[in-house]
């Protein structure tokens, strides 16, 4: 990685002048933390006492048998406190905020996971907290809003643009340029201006470090392939990082195929042909944009993958051929989710289920002695409103209708 925060031709720091100083300080604090072993120790300590790291690596024996190929292992980021890998990044940044002496944090959130994680961290560290969330997402993800508020955060519904994640990011930047003296912007994924992509990946690298040890202990050798879903790219970077140097391990990032790549209604930036290089939200990467450079509406059944950009580090790994990118459609995702629940008693988040789809496609062709790891970035039970909806479950609908009536009449 070059000095200016570039990864190959991607990355950079396209920020308004008013944030220049803030990023200098952030960069300094980040570098100091990286060079201070006690920081990582403190981080590990926090994650093992407040969250439950190391998270387990589960051998999915039933799924392995079902597909009759590779041994499928699942890295259980769903067991983190707040239910997803997002906690890793957020707690790490929390420690950094403490070091920088700031007293307030802000964050964007799409599905709400990163918002809940940030609100949680803020409560734990005693920071003030404001979460920006597209109005659409507020409406879709009310339970997460409820918890954020209960944790003491202010949730601001963003009414601009597509009223989703990217607009929440813009709005968070608008807050930041006004309040940078007291405030740190807890970016939720491995995107954004440098040093965010690298810093978020660093905190998330805790996943891959554990997984490498665990797979060797449990399976006896490194995995043949690793699958991770790719929204902004943080869980993927988290598990891939440690294995980049391992020739025998192929890394597969799975993007949201939505209704299918051919429909244009998806969020595939690195596979497919709809994305092109661009600069937005402070960094350069492959964006889903039109010929004028206006960002397009994306679609995915999973809010967390429904994003126009992608980690510049992943764009570079794509250029280098070090990570292969595939897409999973909404329908495939629901099928994989169903199978995983029934076979293993595990409920992947819709995001994570994308990684399962691709693993299920490839496992049967592999040797039963080979291991593959799926990074299960989060749990799906928080997303009941989306999942029950996606399954079009009639008794769920009836339940909600009844509840609604009760509330209407009281």
């Amino acid at each position: 990685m070059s000095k200016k925060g570039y990864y190959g031709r991607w990355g950079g720091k396209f920020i308004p002048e008013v944030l220049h100083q803030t990023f200098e300080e952030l960069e300094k604090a980040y570098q100091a933390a990286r060079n201070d072993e006690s920081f990582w120790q403190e981080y590990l300590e926090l994650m093992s006492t407040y969250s439950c790291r190391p998270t387990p690596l589960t051998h999915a024996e039933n799924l392995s048998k079902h597909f009759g190929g590779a041994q499928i292992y699942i890295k259980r980021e769903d067991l983190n406190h707040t239910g997803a890998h997002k906690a890793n990044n957020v707690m790490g940044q929390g420690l950094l905020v403490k070091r920088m002496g700031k007293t307030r944090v802000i964050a964007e959130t799409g599905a709400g996971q990163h918002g809940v994680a940030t609100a949680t961290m803020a409560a734990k560290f005693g920071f003030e907290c404001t979460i920006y969330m597209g109005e659409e997402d507020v409406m879709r993800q009310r339970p997460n809003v409820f918890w954020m508020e209960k944790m003491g955060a202010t949730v601001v519904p963003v009414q601009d643009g597509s009223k989703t994640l990217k607009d929440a990011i813009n709005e968070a930047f608008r807050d930041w340029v006004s309040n940078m003296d007291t405030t740190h912007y807890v970016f939720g994924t491995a995107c954004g201006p440098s040093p965010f992509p690298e810093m978020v990946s660093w905190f998330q690298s805790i996943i891959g470090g554990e997984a490498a040890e665990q797979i060797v202990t449990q399976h006896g050798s490194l995995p043949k392939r690793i699958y991770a879903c790719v929204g902004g790219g943080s869980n993927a970077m988290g598990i891939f990082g440690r294995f980049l140097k391992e020739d025998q391990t192929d890394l597969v990032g799975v993007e949201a195929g939505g209704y299918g790549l051919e429909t244009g209604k998806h969020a595939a930036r690195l596979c497919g042909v709809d994305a092109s290089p661009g600069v937005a939200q402070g960094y350069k990467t492959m964006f889903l944009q039109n010929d004028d450079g206006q960002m397009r509406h994306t679609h995915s059944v999973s809010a967390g993958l429904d994003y126009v950009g992608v980690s510049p580090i992943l764009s570079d790994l794509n250029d280098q051929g070090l990570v292969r990118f595939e897409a999973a459609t909404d329908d495939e995702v629901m099928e994989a989710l169903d199978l995983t629940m029934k076979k293993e008693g595990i409920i992947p988040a819709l995001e994570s289920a994308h990684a399962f789809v691709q693993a299920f496609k490839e496992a049967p062709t592999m040797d039963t002695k080979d291991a593959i790891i799926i990074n299960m970035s989060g749990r799906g039970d928080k997303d009941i409103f989306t999942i029950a909806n996606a399954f079009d479950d009639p008794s769920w609908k009836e339940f909600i209708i009844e509840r609604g009536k009760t509330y209407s009449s009281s």
Partner: protein
Amino acid sequence: MQLEAYLKERKQQKEILLMTHIVLGYPSFDTNREVIKQMVDNGVDCIELQIPFSEPMADGPVILKANQDSISGGTTIKECLEFGAEMVRTYSIPFLYMTYFNIVFKYGEVEFISKAADSGIAGLIIPDLPPEEGDNFAEKARAQNVAPILIYAPTTSDQRMQELDKYGAGFIYCTARKGVTGKQSEFGADFFAYLARCRQATTKPLAVGFGIQSRNDVQEITGKADMAVVGSRTITLVDQEGSDKVGPFIRELLGN
């Protein structure tokens, strides 16, 4: 440089200059034409034409909405660039493009600068393009006589101001405060100290923007800055009272 010289010359005759701003295609190019006519006729010194972008990260709610409405109304970059060229042909004051870097990047940095230069555009304001980024963008622009307008903020250190100055041309855009466009600014002691720091760092004219909304605001900075920049306020005015209110508003601002 052309723009800088023009501004310095104008400044000889006036206490303070005025740059106004419109969002291209919002609410329509026709309205843009009417508004610009009123601006020019009533003594504005130069005009910032914002090419809309879907993610205007440094803009507040008014300009943000104008960007988005313009795009969803179908405004294309091609139309914007044609409109810019038309304005340059029509009026004698300088016109600048303001936009976010992706618009330039996607168009091609070199191509964009050439197109602007060919159209006679005087300068470019790209708030998310610090001089460290882009492919020597400022240099290339200067080479084609299109002024890359650099921005100072209250958080910019003295040293960095001097550094930025080296890249810029035309004038320095001093944001009056932290934050985004559109909110009222307070011009207190801190602000004047900051403005003094700006003056120290550059010999270029100083434009002050972000939150200038009234004659009073303009008076506050008169004598300390060279040019006032009015943005969101005109958009709101046109939205609420129609484009023919722009002339009187400009006259009021200038105390005419």
